Every structure is written in C-alpha cells, then in structure tokens.
C-alpha cells in the first residue's frame, strides 16, 4: 500500500477566516497537490485563469490542486475522493474545512480510522475580535469551547481588530493546550500549517517573518528516550516537527516522528531502507529556535 496521505482539518466558528486561510493555501501550494474539501465554493477566491476544469462539485486547478464541495456528507465525499485518487490522481495532502459549528477533532478522527490517511493536525482559526463574546453565548459558547479544545494549533486571526491581545492570549491558553499563532489575514507560512513535504526536507534556516525552520541530522541511530524528551520538552514556540529516524532500539526500522502543536505521534513505517541518516526538521517562532542545541 502506498504511503498514507496527510490529513488536516481546519476548524473554527463561522466568519473567523477559515476560507481566507484556504485561499492562501490554494494560491501558495507550489509543487504540492492539495485536495481541499470545502463547504462552499462561492467563498473561495479562485482566479478564473487558475481553473483547469469545473465539474459541478469539484474544481481542478492548474497547479494540480483540487477543490471538492462537501455537500451533505463528509464521509461519502471523503471516500469518493480516496477512490478517485486510487484510480487516477495522487494528492500530497488532504485538507478539510470543518463547518462553523462542527467539532474538528471528530473529523480528524476519520484519519485514524482510515489507513489511507495520516492524521496531520487540527488547525482552529479564532477571530480575535469576537471569540470571547461568542464563547459566552448560551447557544454557541459550548460549541466554540469544544473547537478550541480540539485544536493542535490555534490561529488567532484578525489580531488587528482585537482589543487587549495579551489578555486574550491568556484566556485562550486557559481553554486550549495548543500553541497560538497570530495572523492578520491568515498570513502564515504554509509549511507551518500543513507541514513539510513528504521527505521532511526543507531548507535549513528558511524564514518567513517571525518564523523559522531548523533541521537536525544524525548519522548514527538515535536514543528514543532522548529524542522524545527533546520534543516533549520543546518550548511552546516549537509548532511542528517532522522526522525520519533510526532509533537505537530498532535500527533497522523507519520511524516517522510527527509533532503538531502539543500532539506527538511516532509511527513505524517499515524497514529503514535508506542510505542517509536520521533527520528531523522543526518549525516554529524564530527567536527560540535559534537557541536550541544542534546536537
């Protein structure tokens, strides 16, 4: 069976800016083929020149990405997409836009049940200007709090419209374990949100604004406990990590290490079968990463 496809869920209440984030993704998806499942094409800002084919409930883009509308059933839309991809196309990443009242964590569970998918992260977008008022609403407050709890990464959007940002940050940290990324119009590096490409390779020290990536290589097998401790103890500013590792306790196996926010997964992906050594890339906020030890 081919390698499972990373599966990301973008959640957050109505009007927080999920679509803005998706628009950025579709425009900036250089070299990576995303399949994006959305509630409504209408809200997407797709340049007419970029559309390769419009098939009713799907739009194929010239850059290889595909948008599908979810319609009434995410389950059947997703299964349909997986079947389509087995027959014809191969996507590098599947992104689902959760409805504004859905619990995105429940949607991410689908990737755990589906061997063809690998759960990547739950990104919950938060409207800095509105979230506390809406979270106090008797009819939707609990829905919003469930979304915050389900997040692996929180994107605090519309910070230009927020009042007391430090107080809001404190409040969010009390609702959710997830690291908080601040944005204005969903302007965040895509690698941070959707991870690195399949190999985990990315230019060392590449930076976008306040963000940086940092990579490690180890020619010899790595002590499992040491690496996990390093990731567990990594400061909150480390937002993502992806590595392909030979652990000393299983040097002939290929372990894939995956960190999104505070969520760490280690999976066995078969025999090592690789000439290079272990490697790990971390993404996060610039100042802290610069301080991490290289070895």
């Amino acid at each position, binding site marked *: 069976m081919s390698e499972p496809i990373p599966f990301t869920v973008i959640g957050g209440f109505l009007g927080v800016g999920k679509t803005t984030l998706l628009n950025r993704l579709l425009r900036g998806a250089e070299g990576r083929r995303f399949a994006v499942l959305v509630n409504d094409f209408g809200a997407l800002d797709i340049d007419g020149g970029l559309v390769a084919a419009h098939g009713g409930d799907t739009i194929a883009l010239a850059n290889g990405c595909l948008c599908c509308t979810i319609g009434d059933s995410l389950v059947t839309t997703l*299964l349909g997409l997986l079947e389509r991809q087995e027959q014809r196309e191969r996507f590098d990443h599947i992104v689902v836009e959760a409805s*504004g009242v859905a619990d995105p964590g429940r949607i991410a*569970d689908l990737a*755990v*049940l589906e*061997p063809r998918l690998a759960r990547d992260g739950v990104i919950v977008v938060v409207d800095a200007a509105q979230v506390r008022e809406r979270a106090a609403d008797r009819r939707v407050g609990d*829905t919003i709090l469930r979304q915050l709890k389900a997040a692996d990464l929180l994107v605090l959007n519309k910070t230009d419209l927020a009042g007391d940002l430090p107080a809001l940050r404190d409040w969010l940290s009390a609702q959710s374990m997830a690291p908080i990324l601040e944005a204005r119009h969903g302007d965040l590096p895509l690698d941070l949100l959707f991870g690195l490409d399949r190999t985990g390779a990315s230019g060392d020290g590449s930076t976008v604004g306040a963000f940086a990536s940092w990579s490690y290589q180890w020619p010899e097998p790595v002590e499992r406990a040491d690496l996990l401790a390093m990731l567990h103890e990594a400061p909150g500013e480390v937002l993502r990590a992806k590595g392909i590792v030979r652990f000393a306790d299983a040097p002939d196996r290929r372990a894939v290490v995956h960190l999104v926010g505070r969520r760490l997964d280690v999976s066995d992906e078969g025999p090592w079968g690789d000439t290079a050594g272990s490697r790990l890339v971390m993404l996060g906020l610039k100042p802290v990463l610069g301080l991490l030890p290289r070895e």
Partner: protein
Amino acid sequence: MTTTVYSARRVITMNPNRPFATHVAVRDGRILGAGSLEELKGWGKVELDTRFADKVILPGFVEGHSHAFEGGVWKFPYVGYFDRTGPEGKHAPGLKSIDEVVAALQAHEATLPKGASLLAWGFDPIYFGGRRMVLADVDRISTERPVVIIHSNFHVANANTPVLAKAGITRTTNVHGIVKDAKGDPTGELQEMAAKYMAYRAAGVELAAVLSDEQAVWRFARVAQLAGVTTATDLHNELPESTVEGYLKATGSDDFPIRLLPAFAATSVPPAEGVVRLQALTKKNNDKLRFQLVKIVTDGSIQGLSARMRWPGYYDGTPNGVWNVGPDDIDRILLAYHRAGFQVHIHTNGDEASEVGIEAVERALAAAPRWDHRHTLQHAQMADAGQFRRMKALGMCANLFANHLYYWGDIHYAKTLGPERAERMDACATALGVGVPFAIHCDAPVTPIGPLFTAWCAVNRLTASGRTLGEAEKIPVADALRAITLGAAYTLKLDEELGSIDVGKRADFAILDDDPLSVPPGKLKDVGVWGTVLGGKVFEAPKA
C-alpha cells in the same frame, strides 16, 4: 367517463359539513361526492362497487415526516426488537435477544456471495437488560467477510473483527465513538462518525445510491401503502440527478402507489444555487411527485444525546448536543428559501433548537413579510406551551414525533429529559389547545411507517414498558385521525387538494377493516389496513 360509487360500512370524511357517509363517488380520479347512494346517483350513470361494503373508508393517510431511505434499507435484513412489515407485506418478527439476531444473520450470511459485505439494520439493544452486542457475537456471523449491524437510531453500529482489522482499530486507537470494554479492548461497537464511516467502508460508497435509487423508492412506496398511506414525504434529500431520475421514473408508473414529496436538503449546496435548483425541479412535478419542500436540520436527536436543549439540559447531566445548522447560520439559509416562496421544514428536537427555529422564522418574516408560509418545525419534541404560542403567532406549523413516546419514552423519562419534560414531550394537546396546525409522524426508517400506530401513540401516550407518559397531552382519536390526514396535508400545503373526502379533491383513500372511531382507543393501532385507493386506482395490500 366512468363514475364509480363505493359503498362502505362507513365513510369518515374529515369534512365537518358531512363528517360521515355510506358511499363515496369517484370520477376521473377525483372525489365527486360523499353521501347516500341516492344522492350520488344524481350525478348521472354510476357503477356501484361493493368491494368495500364491510370496510371503513378514510382519507388516505399523509405521512409528513418519513424518508425514502426506508425503502433503501429493506434491501438489507432487518434485525430490530419490534415486529416490522417489509415492502412485500412480509412480516419481519422482532428479534428478542442477541442470540436471535446472530442466528438470523448466520442464516442470511450463508446466502451471500463470497467476498460480499454483510449489512443489517434496525438493531436495538435497549431492551436486553443492559447487555450490549460485542465482537464475539458478531464474529459468530462471520470472521471472513465484513459485517456491520446498524442500530435502529442509525447513529451506532456493531462491526466484526475483519472490519476493525481493516481500519487498524486496536486498544490503542484513541478515537471518539469507538467503544471499549473494561480491559480497554474495542467491543466492536461504533458510534456516530465512526459508525457511519465504517458502514460505508464495508459497503462501499455506492451504498448512498442504493439507498435512494428507483428500486428503493418503490419499496418505500409499498411499505407506506401497506399502512394506508397515500401521500408521503422524503423529508431530506440532496436530490442528485440519479435520485431525481429514479423518482420521475417510479412516479410515472400507474402502479406507483403513493404521492411523494421530497424535501430538498438545504445545506447540500449554497442557498443561491439551491433555490435555482429547486425552482427547476418544480417544473418536473407530476401527479405523484411534488418538489416544493425544503429541509434545514438544526440539532441532532434527544436519544442520541445530540439535541440542543435550553437550560437545564439533559436530565442525567450529559453535555448539551451539537448544531448542524446553528443560530448564526440559519438565517442565511432560511431567508433565501423564504424569499423564493418555498416552505421550509426545520428539524428541531431539543427546545433550544426549536427556539432558534422560531426566532429565525420571526426574523425572516420581518425581513421579507409573507403570508401563509407555513414554515414547520419538524419533531419539536421538547417545545413547551410558550413556544407553541410563538409558533401560532408567526403562522408556523408543527409536526410532532408521537412515535417517540412509545419507542424511547422510557429512556426520556429515566435519562434524557426526566419525568416532567418527558410527560410533556410531543405536546399534541398543547398544539391543539393553542391552535398550532399540526401533524404527527414516524420518521421512517427510524420507526416504522404506520399512521394508525402514530395516532395510537398520540391518543394513548404509552411507552414500550407500559408507562403513560403525560395524561394531559393525550388527544382524542378524532383529532389524532385528523393529524394523520388533513392536519398533515396542511403542513405540506396540500390540504386543498387532499387530506379529506370532499368534492373535487383527489380520490385518495385508506381502506380499513374496522372503524377507528368505534374501536377502543387502545386498539387503534390494531385496526387492519385492507389497502388504499390512489387517484381512483385501487391498491390492495398483499396479505402476509
């Protein structure tokens, strides 16, 4: 031009000017009149048909909330606790233990081709004294092919080992909806999204098509017809082309035994697109198929612990349920269809959901005043007197889920709602007293289609264990019969065309073996249905 006069033991018309008659005359598929033979002969030459001479004729029953998916699931074996009648009139006996379910499915398994998945539906363990179905039970059916047994609520399923293995579900799988035993091992019971995903995985995506293809709608129509139904809704459908084609083909046949009203699933496409789509579909309407309804689903279900409730919430402390379309999103959808002149049916189980539905209609009316919209709350199970008064003031209707009283009333009393709110759920007497036009329904396939049973529930309010759930909300038999005929027709804007036996209306009748107004109210559900007449064509129900 033939005029047929049917003689009957009694004709119950629902027309207050002439509530009872001995004969009914039919010409060109329409009702020429009800009265005495002498009176009806005044119309000219008539042919007297006496086949119903010992039967009782009522207006054909109108099921205001059902799903054609009832016909879809009959493709698969039914393994529920309660007896149920299949499309061919075949009696499917209730299975009273897990062993009976396993034995029935072992027999079925032997008939399946190699490699095929086994799907069954209707399973309901709540009467098995707490014993749940586990992996070992389902593995007795097969450890080779995937087996998925869907529960009667359609939100929970049991699977066998091959299904779990294929999905890689083990004791370390940490996913909502995977039930584990005391030792932490998966029991094979799956809930909500996990259940749905695994059912589709086992059966293939074509399952969705199978559930609403032309054969499915035929089976649905037959099940409905057996219960005396002549008009039924398919109250939530995305209406893809393949389904519409099947519906058009089926309803184009003279032998198709019901009139069908699909409700367009409003959230399946953006409203602006949906309005245009539905407007185009209405051009395809025929005598037996009517596109005119829209459905919006706000919350989940009470027994599924996903209803949106006002304070103080679930009786057993379960957290409040989930929105499908919540208070911030409903206006956008409702207003689009409201402005376009469509009638919108809003699914609301919990009272917070009803509140959201009512307030959304209020805002829509302020934004775009409209008379006789008849927007209807579907289920409105927890609506209280105040909410009914608001519905009345806004010109709304309600379709109450009377069957719930019997099937889940005990659970509502003990766990979900508690005694006080359980006793006033599905408040037919309040609706009647306040003057909200209302129907009562089955939500098939969630419960079996059978308007006489539904009426029996509204009249007697008995739970499965025999508890009377709310003496004060019982309604008289005559009102219950109105709710399954003219009352339901009103909630579908069909009351000028059908729902009573009156001059000029469609000749749609339910032919009963006995007089529902004369039998003891406790026997209402046992009144036999001989068959139906649809547009003057007689459909005798096959005898099991």
